[in-house]
């Protein structure tokens, strides 16, 4: 054995008792002698000991109350925000904030948080978990959780005096009194605990390492499919045949009454291109039909409206178009919107109408070259009848959406705002063909002139090159 001297600290004095009554009377003696830093250690809660030792009541109920109230608030705010504000659920026509339906969850969360308050609050107030306690150094103290009762006087008490306390405790009838000391020798955790701990940590890292390795390495083997029919769903592609429906088409149209997300967000003016307020004066039944067709997704009304639009188109030019069309594009026309319109025009319109809008797109060229008998040539955007004063923005929008003559409606393919962007772009396209410098603001004039000069020079250069090439070709041919 080593001879190292172990430094010890005196924490206090403990006395052992065998019955509750002897402990209680000893507690009262100690309290009456003026000691305040005292405590009793018992295997079960002893009734009346708080009085005998002068222990103050705890603040725990208040912690619980606050925690419980927090639970109620969190639950109500969470439910109202999630179901009534952020994502509105319409359930059986009930109001969005229907408090009675929110009571059960509010009740449960109140109980849950109040219970957390009681549970964690109690351990926090008790200063637990705390695994080291000077009392534990005395082997006899093991019986404090079995059948013995201990009274303890702390050395930091003002009146503490080892002999005095010892005599007082002996006087109360205790048969075992001992000074509570804690040796300052280091407490060692057994080595195998570290070993097990280390192994557990290492083992817990294995799955993570596996995942990380798999994410950075390649494998020549095909992926393992846990749920084969989920990875390779038997769903049909757009143009495939199916036996599920009588018409053998796998492509289905929307269920009647379907309203797509975002569809209801815009005004009726924007959805139809018609000035609905003005239409209310002239043709109230049509307004009703528009509301049914566009706001309530009523397919019958949609069909009626389509018929009416087609009939108006088929009417001779002498019949005045009485529809109060929207005069001005409802979107803010700026460079961004024009770029958007240009892109959409290039995708959807230019194949027939041509990139320049003269109505000579690739489809038209092909149709002309094979003399397709039913082909109706696409209109040029640059005829005066299509200018904004004769053909308002709303009407142009309606034509894009519903179609005209052989042209189908594009409402199903092009998004609402994109259709309005195309309207804006077509106006710009019309202007581009006979624009004067007066339309350009002073600040931009120089830049535009420079750009025009550049473009002209470029055209000239291209023309010269083409001429040269033609001349060269002629020479080689001859």
């Amino acid at each position, binding site marked *: 054995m080593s001879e190292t001297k172990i430094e010890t600290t005196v924490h206090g004095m403990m006395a052992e008792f065998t019955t509750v009554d002897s402990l209680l009377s000893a507690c*009262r003696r100690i309290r009456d002698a003026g000691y305040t830093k005292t405590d009793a*250690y018992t*295997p079960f809660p002893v009734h009346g000991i708080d009085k005998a030792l002068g222990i103050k009541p705890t603040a725990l109920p208040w912690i619980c109350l606050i925690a*419980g109230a927090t639970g109620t608030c969190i639950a109500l705010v969470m439910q109202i925000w999630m179901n009534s504000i952020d*994502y509105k659920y319409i359930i059986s026509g009930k109001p969005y904030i229907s408090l009675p339906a929110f009571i059960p969850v509010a009740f*449960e969360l109140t109980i849950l948080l109040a219970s957390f308050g*009681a549970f964690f609050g109690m351990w926090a107030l008790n200063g637990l978990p705390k695994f080291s306690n000077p009392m534990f150094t005395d082997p006899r103290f093991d019986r*404090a959780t079995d*059948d013995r009762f201990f009274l303890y006087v702390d050395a930091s008490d003002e009146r503490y005096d080892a002999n005095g306390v010892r005599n007082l405790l002996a006087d109360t009838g205790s048969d075992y009194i001992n000074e509570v000391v804690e040796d300052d020798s280091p407490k060692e955790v057994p080595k195998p605990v570290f070993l097990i701990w280390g192994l557990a940590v290492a083992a817990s890292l294995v799955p993570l390492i596996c995942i990380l390795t798999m994410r950075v390495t390649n494998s020549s083997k095909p992926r393992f499919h846990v749920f084969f029919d989920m990875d390779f769903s038997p769903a049909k592609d757009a143009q495939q045949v199916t036996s599920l429906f009588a018409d053998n088409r796998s492509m289905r149209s929307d269920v009647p009454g379907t309203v797509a997300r975002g569809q209801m967000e815009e005004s009726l003016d924007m959805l139809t291109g018609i000035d609905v307020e003005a239409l209310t004066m002239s043709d109230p039944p049509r307004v009703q039909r528009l509301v049914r067709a566009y706001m309530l997704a009523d397919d019958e009304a949609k069909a009626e409206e389509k018929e009416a639009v087609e009939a108006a188109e088929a009417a001779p030019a002498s019949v005045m178009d009485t529809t109060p069309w929207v005069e001005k594009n409802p979107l803010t026309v700026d460079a961004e919107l024009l770029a958007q319109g240009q892109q959409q025009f290039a995708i959807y319109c230019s194949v027939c109408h041509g990139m320049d809008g003269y109505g000579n797109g690739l489809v038209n060229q092909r149709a002309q070259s094979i003399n397709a008998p039913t082909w109706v040539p696409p209109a040029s955007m640059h005829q005066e009848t299509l200018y904004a004063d004769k053909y308002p923005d709303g009407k142009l929008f309606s034509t894009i959406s519903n179609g005209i003559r052989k042209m189908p409606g594009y409402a199903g393919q092009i998004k609402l705002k994109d259709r309005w962007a195309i309207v804006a772009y077509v106006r710009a396209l019309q202007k581009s063909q006979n624009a004067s410098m007066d339309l350009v603001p002073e600040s931009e004039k120089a830049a535009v002139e420079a750009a025009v000069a550049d473009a002209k020079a470029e055209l000239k250069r291209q023309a010269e090159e083409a001429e040269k090439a033609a001349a060269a070709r002629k020479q080689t041919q001859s």
Partner: protein
Amino acid sequence: MSLAIPNGLDNTVERPGERAPLVLGETTYHDITEAVCKVAERPPSKGWIGGFLVAFALLQMLGLLIVYLIYTGVGVWGNRAPIFWGWPIVNFVFWVGIGHAGTLISAILFLFRQEWRTSINRAAEAMTIFAVACAGTFPGIHVGRAWLAFWLAPYPSLNLWMWPQFRSPLLWDVFAVSTYGTVSLLFWYMGMVPDLATFRDRSKNKYRRMAYGILCLGWSGSSRHWMRYEKAYAILAALAAPLVLSVHTIVSFDFAVSQVPGWHTTIFPPYFVAGAIFSGFAMVLTLMVPARKMLNLEKLITIRHLENMCKIILATGSIVGLAYGTEFFIAWYGQVPAEQFAFLNRAFGPYAWAYWTMVSCNVISPQIFWFKKARTTPWIIVVVSIFVNIGMWFERFVIVISSLSRDYLPSAWAYFTPTWVDWGMLIGSFGLFFTLFLLFCRTLPVINMAEVKATLAKQEHMAHLHGHGEEAAEGH
């Protein structure tokens, strides 16, 4: 020392003006410690090992069946149109109901100062938690795509772009059952801490001592700690009492808020809560009567404890019987044809066999407890409690299956047939329950030693007062 009941000592006799003893024999505090700790300290008996092996094998079967279910799909169950709820929901409601007795004994009987609860509350709470674990399994796998069960939680999802629907009783149920499981666990663990400290202080083995030392959070038995601990315990009891009533109420909303005939009734919440207490106590008795014998705890879990529980079985069983009658009365009195048909169909339709099994087990069999002889004879108690367990399972079967199989649309009627997977999962859930319970018996204090010691101290104090006719000396 032997803990057999001394001959002639019967604590079921009522003596006017005197409390019957709840701890029998010349028992000391140390005897209580010994009796309870020995259960976990002595080497496992052959019976325990055998029981554990069987239970563990059944648990493995449940695990394999769940893997099979998830891999193949919910078609392996007997759930077919129109009975989509099927056995998984029957089992869920059955197990949640079982899980009501523990917290009821701990919380409500604590608030009513029923001291006989002290010997049985620990095991009953453990049973509660294990039953809730069994219950939680079934809705989790019943959602079909079990790996997406976390969609039930209100978290900001980037895939769904939406929140759970808080007006749905099914979501209330998620909150109720998970809150109940959590609070029961806290309550159980907190109650166990002082006893875990006893386990720690008795441990000879260094590692065992360290493990229990960590589990008991360094409990020392300080009076200051006890004072806050008792306050926290009382608060938790006060919180858990309405909670335990709310849980089965909300489970009953799963049914009552719907429009299905036979479900859409306002009697469901009280009827379900009474049934839950009924089935929970039955399960406690089924477990405790053999356990007190095998674990030598007859001095602590006395015949009086069993008798009290039998009285509760009798009371709640009669309430359940009254509810069955009331349902029929309201169906007639309400004059709704679909409701009237639903109840006649229950009693005389294709599921009449299940209905009358339920009535005989739940209403008729507990009536034997009107006789004191039956309440104090362990084997009768076990038999009746098993009948009640069977009856309560059938009650949920009748409610779920008979209502769904024949609702408003006769062309969609069907007869439910369970598959072998349904059977396997029901049996496997008992494997889960008993595996956990047997492990609990071997590793944790099965009886609340601290509370029993406090009851003993009070009992001795009262005896002392009676013996000497002195006034209580309560100090200043």
